[in-house]
């Protein structure tokens, strides 16, 4: 499955381990979150980068403790109409996580911009859609009324624009020009 990041298809540099798979010597590996919790004592000594694969019923506050040690968090959309991961993504960003946040599962272009706005930064997508359909989808709306969303160049928060004199400086996590 192509991996979409920063407006391009890239090669996934991560090794995704299951519940039983042996750890490699180093490199980038993701671990299912339940295993990460159980084996944290040994995993904390892993010489490479660690990522966690969550389910959309995991609680952000349970993940909070591990976030400073993670370089990738993977959140699934089992069906594109199952919107739980949007809220978990926002919570994880609000907890201060700045690393890669990856959406997997049933990802479609018409939900892509929402995912970017809540903080997803990479997307495991289906071969069905060419790169330009993602590039188009990422520009569907240039305005949002809600505050505190992730934005890219050319996107504006309506309320903050209207009240630029009172709006506080955007907090750093809003500014990262990473998504899509």
């Amino acid at each position, binding site marked *: 499955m192509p991996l979409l990041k920063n407006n391009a298809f890239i090669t996934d540099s991560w090794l995704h381990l299951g519940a039983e798979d042996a750890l490699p010597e180093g490199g980038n590996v993701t671990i299912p979150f339940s295993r990460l919790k159980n084996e944290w004592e040994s995993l904390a000594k892993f010489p490479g980068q660690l990522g966690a694969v969550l389910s959309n019923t995991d609680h952000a506050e349970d993940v909070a403790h591990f976030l400073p040690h993670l370089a990738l968090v993977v959140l699934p959309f089992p069906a*594109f*109409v*199952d*919107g*739980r991961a*949007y*809220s*978990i993504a*926002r*919570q994880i960003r*609000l907890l201060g996580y700045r690393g890669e946040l990856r959406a997997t599962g049933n990802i*479609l272009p*018409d*939900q892509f*911009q*929402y*995912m970017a*706005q*809540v903080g997803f930064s990479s997307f495991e997508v289906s071969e069905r859609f060419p790169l330009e359909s993602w590039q*188009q989808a990422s520009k*569907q*709306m*240039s*305005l*949002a*009324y*809600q*505050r*505190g*969303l992730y934005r890219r160049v050319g996107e*504006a928060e*309506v*309320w*903050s*624009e*209207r*009240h630029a004199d*009172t*709006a*506080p400086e955007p*907090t750093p996590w809003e500014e990262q020009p990473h998504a899509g």
Partner: protein
Amino acid sequence: MYRYDEFDHQFVQERTAQFRDQANRRLSGALTEDEFRPLRLMNGLYLQLHAYMLRVAIPYGTLSSKQMRQLAYIADKWDRGYGHFTTRQNIQYNWIKLEDTADILAALAEVEMHAIQTSGNCIRNVTTDHWAGAAADEIADPRPVGELLRQWSSLHPEFSYLPRKFKIAVTGAPNDRAAVKVHDIGLRLHRNDAGAIGWEVMVGGGQGRTPMIAVTVRDFLPEKELVAYIEAIMRVYNLYGRRDNKFKARIKILVHEIGAEKFKAEVEAEYERRPEQTTHVEEKELQRIAAYFAPPAFEKLSRFSPAFEEAKLLHPGFARWARNNLAAHRVDGYTIVNISLKPEGGIPGDATSDQMRLMAELAERYSHDELRVSHPQNIILPHVKKDDALAIWQALVPAELATANYGLAGDIIACPGMDYCSLATARSIPISQAISRKFADLDVQEKIGPVKINISGCINACGHHHVGHIGILGLDKKGEEFYQITLGGSSAENASIGSILGPGFAGHEVADAIEKILTTYVKLRQPGEEFLYAYRRLGPQPFKEALYAAA
């Protein structure tokens, strides 16, 4: 009235372009129907029994004359010359083509309207008191909060794929005309002992197959915190609302299953974690919006209008209409005109394009260019001089818009039922028509007094039968339509869910049954006692005897 600024205009234009692209991709086959479905629903487009149905948002039920004329234009150009006003203050068109929809959305955008989130598992059009800004009992106009929430909820990236639909209603008056206790979130403005105003936040009300009255999660929330607090409620719901069974997916089930206290604790914990601790922007935005809702330039008039009193003496028909269809305005010399969309034998909530244009013209001439759509499916001219009431009535009579049954037995709420809806198990419209014919004599209706009769054509309860003083639910029993009657429901500040009276009736028996119930009430009531209170005092027994006692 609220007016779009450059941002709002750009927003609806981009949204229209987005939908045009989505519809084209569907027509070309690039999108599957499963993928397109939630996208079209979030633009108000349903696939019904015979055609597509487009539901257009009328935020908090407020329309200008220009907007009403555009609705008439759409009815003529792309539908069959009429529209249907709904219980959530929207309008639906029943005969729409997918290919035309983007053009209709563009026509709406021209007059600062849209169909965003009138369907789908997202936050729906925010509704409010249809007499907002005019009612004599109002503490403050709730529409600025309605507009604030409209903007905040529009294309909310986090809350567009909720477990189920989500409805918010707002009232600024103690007499609740917005049914806030049977909404997913209900907001009620009130004053504390110090005279300050704040909002009671209620969660988990609803109808459908599991009717529930909302529970209060905050008694007195400062206005500037509304957005952040509701955001916390939405996040808790989005994370924990059930997704395994669509019939158990509304927030009321979550509140019920985990308990009000636990739910409240979850919301408060989420609220504590909110990213923006300051609310300066929300306060400024609310002030900006509120300026648009400044009262119109009312004239200084005497409370007593000799012309109005004289007209009532001269025209008995006008006197009756004035008695039933006018309501107290907060400003002396003014009145609220309630135009009934419930003529005898008509379809509740339907209006032709000619009727829409006439109401637009009357609003322009006599009501500071404003109209409202009400939750009970009528149209309101909110700011009318009593001196002008006769002229309005005279214009309404030939257009069949002067039925003097506002709030009476003929003022029935009904869903479209099996005549249009693909979910319905029985017809609603013919039942409504039969009842309105049964009570065609307005003397009889006036003698009975205020009563709310609500009809739903299936268990989803779009006709609000649970909260009708008299509720009628159409079901299917082995291929035959039959109708259950419930009594004692209310959607007002004294909200309650009605109780089933006994075995159901065949369609042709319903109107007679309603007549027996109301005859029994008239016989047993105390002086001045309205139906709902008489039922609460008497209980179901006398009504059961009247309906089911062996002949």
